[in-house]
C-alpha cells in the first residue's frame, strides 16, 4: 500500500518535471512525426498493393513506435544520473517504488505517443482497421510490454556510460520477439473482425510482459544500487 | 552427385582443421600452465 503511494509520488514528480521541461514529450513526438512524414511521403496510402497493406502497415507502425520511444524512454533514468539526482533518489526511495514510478511514466508516455501517432498514421497511410477494439487492445498491450523492457534497459544504460545507441543495442534483442507478436496482432486487428483471432499474439505479448516485469522486480534493485 | 573421393577429401580437410584447433589449444594449455606456476 505504502509502496503504491510512493510509486505514484515518483510518477507525479516525473509528470511535473516533464510538464515543465517537455524534453521527453517533444523528442518522442517530433521523432514520431518526422518519421511518419518521411514514410508517408515516400510510400503513402496507394503505393502499396491492396493485399500487402496489412503486413506493411503493421510493421511500419511498430517500427515508428519503437524508434520514437527509444528517443524518449531511456531519459527517465539517464536524466537522473546526468542531473546528479540519482543518488538523492536512491537514498530516499525504495527501489520497487522507483521502478514502478518510472515504469508508469514510460507507460503514460507510450500511450500518449500511440494516441497521437496511430490516428495520423491511419490518415496518412490509408491504414484501415477491421476491429478497432482489437487494435486498441494490441496498442495497450504493446505499450505495457515496451514500457517494461525499456524501463529496465534504461536503468542499465544509465549506470553504464549510457548513450541512446547503447539503449537501442540492448533493447532490440529483448524487444524483437515482442515486436513480432505486436506486428502480427496489429495485422490481425486490421484484417479479421473477430476478436478471438487476436488471442494467440495477445497472449504471447502479455506473458512476455509478465516475465519481463517479474524478472525486473528481482533485477532492478541490483542494477539500481550498484 | 559427388564422387566418394571428394567426400574423402572433405573428411581429410575437416580432420586437418580439427588437428589445427587441437594443437593451438594444446599450446595455450602449456603456456597457461607455465604462467600459473610463475604467478603466486
Amino acid at each position, binding site marked *: 500500500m505504502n509502496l503504491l503511494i510512493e510509486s505514484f509520488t515518483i510518477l507525479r514528480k516525473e509528470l511535473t518535471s516533464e510538464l515543465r521541461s517537455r524534453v521527453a514529450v517533444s523528442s518522442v513526438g517530433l521523432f514520431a512525426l518526422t518519421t511518419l512524414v518521411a514514410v508517408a511521403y515516400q510510400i503513402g496510402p496507394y503505393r502499396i498493393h491492396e493485399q500487402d497493406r496489412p503486413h506493411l502497415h503493421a510493421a511500419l507502425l511498430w517500427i515508428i513506435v519503437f524508434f520514437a520511444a527509444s528517443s524518449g524512454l531511456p531519459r527517465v533514468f539517464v536524466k537522473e544520473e546526468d542531473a546528479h539526482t540519482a543518488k538523492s533518489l536512491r537514498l530516499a526511495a525504495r527501489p520497487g517504488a522507483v521502478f514502478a514510478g518510472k515504469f508508469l511514466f514510460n507507460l503514460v508516455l507510450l500511450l500518449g505517443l500511440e494516441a497521437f501517432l496511430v490516428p495520423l498514421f491511419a490518415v496518412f497511410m490509408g491504414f484501415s482497421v477491421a476491429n478497432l477494439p482489437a487494435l486498441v487492445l494490441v496498442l495497450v498491450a504493446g505499450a505495457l510490454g515496451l514500457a517494461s523492457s525499456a524501463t529496465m534497459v534504461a536503468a542499465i544504460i544509465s549506470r553504464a556510460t549510457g548513450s541512446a545507441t547503447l539503449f537501442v*543495442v540492448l533493447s532490440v534483442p529483448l524487444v524483437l520477439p515482442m515486436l513480432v507478436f505486436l506486428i502480427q496482432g496489429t495485422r490481425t486487428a486490421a484484417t479479421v473482425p473477430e476478436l478471438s483471432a487476436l488471442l494467440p499474439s495477445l497472449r504471447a505479448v502479455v506473458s512476455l510482459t509478465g516475465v519481463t516485469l517479474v524478472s525486473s522486480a528481482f533485477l532492478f534493485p541490483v542494477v539500481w544500487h550498484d | 552427385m559427388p564422387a566418394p573421393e571428394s567426400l574423402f577429401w572433405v573428411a581429410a580437410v575437416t580432420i586437418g582443421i580439427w588437428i589445427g584447433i587441437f594443437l593451438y589449444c594444446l599450446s595455450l594449455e602449456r603456456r597457461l600452465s607455465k604462467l600459473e606456476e610463475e604467478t603466486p
Partner: protein
Amino acid sequence: MTKTKKASLALLFLWFCVVIWAAFFYAPKAAGFKGESSRIVFFHVPQAWVAVLAFCVNLVASLRYLRHRNLLDDARAAAAARLGLLFAVLATVSGSLFAKVMWGSFWNWDPREVSIAILLLIYAAYFALRQAVSDPERRGSLAAAYAILAFVTMPFLVFVVPRIYWSLHPDTIISAQGSVKVQMHPRMFQVLVGSLLGFTGLFWWLYSLEVRLSRLRLRREEGGE
C-alpha cells in the same frame, strides 16, 4: 598437466577424429536431402547446442556473481558468452551453407534463423554493455542483470515463435510437442550424439582455458596494485 587431464585430452582428440570419419563414412546420407548435404547436421546441430549451452553457463555464472560478488564468476560469465558467440557464429555459417544447398538461399528468415540471429544480437549487446562500464564490479552486475533478462525472454523465441510460424527447418530433436522425437537412421543418431558429446567436451576445455586465464589476470591485478 595431470595424468587424467592428458588422458582426457587424448581421448577428445581421438573422439573427434572418429566422429569426423563416422560423419562421412559410417552414417548413411539422409533421404530427402540434396546430395551429401545432410552430413552437415553432425556439425551444425552440436554447434547450435554449444551456443545454447554457453548461454546457460553464462546464466548460472551471472546468478552466482549476483549472489557472491566474486569477480571470477563475472569472468566465467564473460568467457561463456565469448564462446557462445563464437559457436553461434559457427552454427549460423554452417546452417546458412546448408540452407544455400537445400533451399537455394543463404538466409530465409526461417524462425530458427531468426532465433539464432537474436541470440547473436544478445551476445553482441552483452559485450557492448561490458565495454561501456569501467568499474569492474558494476560491469559484473549490470552484465549479469542483462544476461538474466535476455535469458528469460529467449524461450519465447525458441519455442513460441516456431509454433506460430511455418518453418522450413528440419524438425529438431525436441519437436514442437516437446517430446523427444527421433526419426533418424540409428547410425545417424549415434554419430550425432557422439558429435554432441565431442563438442561439449571441446567447449569445456576452451571454457576452462578462458577461466584460468581470467583467474590469472585477476590475481595479477590484485598483486600489482
